[in-house]
């Protein structure tokens, strides 16, 4: 009788607490449920059913509290903060004065985004970069299965190992290589703007964690992720759509985690009116990319090749066929990852500045070729979510676009602290 009384007393207290505190209480009820089990008032099985019921109540509360619409099944908030310091000096061979040194700390990326599941395969993604006042992603998604996912909106086109296949949070050498930057960063008369952010229709799929994958897209021809550009209605210079295609294969030899994994991929993009020295003159651009990545803990190796056919890319009478590549071995020891990268670009007479390929480097004038060495280390405080990166950069541009001898070099350090959540 006494035991029954105690049982009833405990259950009344427990029930009362739940009814008062509701979902918030449910989240913290684990220790109390364990106490009830220890006292023999409920069995383990009854405790599990109680936990499940509380979890259901809690999940209903969470969704109704934070979801923007009643049909939102899941909502994930994400963010990224990258703070960078660069100290880069440029020496122009034979020049009376060199350009001003970069020696500054700045916000590289401040992302805040959200991804919602809306049921029946539908979803939405928004990611905004407050550091650059640009969109990183803004699209509607419909996923049928692994083999077919459609995105409509702004995202990156399927070109490039560093640019598309690798998140900016996972770049081993802090910044993308000169080869990537020259081919995908916005067209400035030298760089090509032949990749990265576009608004359009994207489709992609894969057969599983290993096996073949594909991506295709029809997009606006121009890269423009700014608020005004992304919302713009275009004009005569960009009224023709671009077409993108990518195929690849992910393979594994041995066990997951300890075996060797590799990825190979090839991409192409056809961009009407995006060639020439000035956009909108009716000159077309075609870009090609191939990459390979091989990993076997603790080693990793990445190789990437770009080439392009730029109609009237040099002058009104001459096309340009620039190419570039990068090679990047790395090794991880505990919480440290060491990386070396070599990258080069031959602009084929179109021209390239140090700052076109090496971010925040003082420009040394327009020349024909650029090469870069990077050596650095990452220290993982909390995996990739909190890490500090430090590296030494040395870049060199050579020869004028007309073939005369010239040289400019830039060297210095780059460091970045990242929090990813």
């Amino acid at each position, binding site marked *: 009788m006494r035991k029954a009384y105690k049982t009833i007393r405990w259950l009344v207290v427990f029930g009362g607490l739940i009814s008062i505190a509701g979902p918030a209480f449910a989240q913290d009820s684990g220790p109390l449920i364990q106490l009830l089990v220890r006292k023999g008032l409920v069995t383990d*099985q009854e405790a599990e059913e109680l936990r*499940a019921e509380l979890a259901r109540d809690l*999940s209903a509360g*969470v969704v109704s509290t934070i979801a923007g619409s009643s049909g939102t*099944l899941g909502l994930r908030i994400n963010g990224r903060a990258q703070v960078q310091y660069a100290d880069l000096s440029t020496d122009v061979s034979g020049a009376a004065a060199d350009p001003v040194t970069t020696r500054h700390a700045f916000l590289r990326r401040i992302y805040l985004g959200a991804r919602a599941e809306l049921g029946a395969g539908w979803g939405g993604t928004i990611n905004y970069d407050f550091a650059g006042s640009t969109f990183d992603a803004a699209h509607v998604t419909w996923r049928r299965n692994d083999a077919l996912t459609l995105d409509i909106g702004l995202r990156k086109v399927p070109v490039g190992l560093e640019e598309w296949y690798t998140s900016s949070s996972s770049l081993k050498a802090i910044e993308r290589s000169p080869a990537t930057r020259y081919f995908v960063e916005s067209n400035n008369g030298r760089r090509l703007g032949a990749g990265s952010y576009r608004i359009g229709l994207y489709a992609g799929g894969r057969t599983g964690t290993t096996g073949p994958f594909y991506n295709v897209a029809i997009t606006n021809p121009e890269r423009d992720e700014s608020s005004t550009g992304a919302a713009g209605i275009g004009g005569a210079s960009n009224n023709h759509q671009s077409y993108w295609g990518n195929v690849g294969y992910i393979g594994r030899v041995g*066990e997951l985690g300890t075996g060797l994994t590799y990825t190979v991929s090839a991409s192409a993009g056809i961009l009407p009116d995006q060639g020439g020295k000035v956009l909108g003159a009716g000159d077309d651009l075609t870009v090609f990319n191939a990459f390979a990545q091989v990993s076997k*803990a603790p080693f990793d190796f990445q190789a990437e090749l770009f080439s392009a056919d730029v109609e009237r890319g040099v002058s009104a009478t001459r096309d340009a066929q620039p190419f570039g590549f990068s090679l990047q071995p790395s090794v991880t*020891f505990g919480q440290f990852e060491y990386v070396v990268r070599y990258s080069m670009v031959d602009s084929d007479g179109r021209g390239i500045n140090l700052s076109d390929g090496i971010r925040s480097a003082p420009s040394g004038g327009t020349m024909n070729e650029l090469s870069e060495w990077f050596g650095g280390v990452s220290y993982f405080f909390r995996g990739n979510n909190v890490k500090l990166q430090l590296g030494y950069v040395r870049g060199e541009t050579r020869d004028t676009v007309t073939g005369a001898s010239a040289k400019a070099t830039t060297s210095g350090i780059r460091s970045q602290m990242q929090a990813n959540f």
Partner: protein
Amino acid sequence: MKRTIAFLFIAALAATTASAQRLVIKGSDTLGARLVPLLAEQYRARNSGVTFEIAAEGSTTGISAIIDGTAQIGMSSRRARTTEHSAAGAKGVVLRPTIVAYDGIGVIVNAGSGITNLTPRQVEQIFTGDITDWSAVGGNPGRISIYTRNTSSGTYADFAELAMNRRDYAASSQKMAGNEQIVAEVARNPNGIGYVGLAYITSPGIKAASISGVQPNKAAVLDKTYPYARPTFYYTNGPATGEAERFIEFTLSDEGQAVVEQVGFVGIR
């Protein structure tokens, strides 16, 4: 017309019968590698005509399969998360757990290691990467190699909760597909450490460390003195029905629980 109706009736009956006799079970490798296949074998011996499809690819896949309706039973070595209850609720699915066995997660080291006992704090520090050399916990100097389950595994999540204060695993930790792979790696590597279910702690080449003097064994799991003990579950969509209900009853029966003990788990009674 009569023939058509008769044909359709027979076809529907055949389809219903075939469906009732095929039991799809997906989820935890801890349960699905040995225990459930053995239970299925014995169940089939007494219920001819029942066929099983068992896929052991991690607890997450088991709970997802119940939510998606692609399995009648989801095996899980962890509790369903709030987000999973939420996803289930959105589809009108009620995730119902049934405890089928208890398991202890044994921390294993190479058989030749001098380590015999660790404290919970040391275990946390090792698996999170705060400690990277055996000398820091009284062992012979040597860089610690950490072997864990992969991220879809319920054991991976459970161990982080039970032993690591929900902290992240060390970046250097190597993810393995299953218990057997972890045993194999730790047996090969004198500096290895990993965790496996009780059923695997007596494997050749490895030994289980006691935790603050408590050995991972049946008694310690049942009286809840071993800190890394947990229930394992079958998940169903509400109360199980049909063949799934009968298989769960068999699992919980004396006969089924004998199989549970036979493969190294701890029975629920």
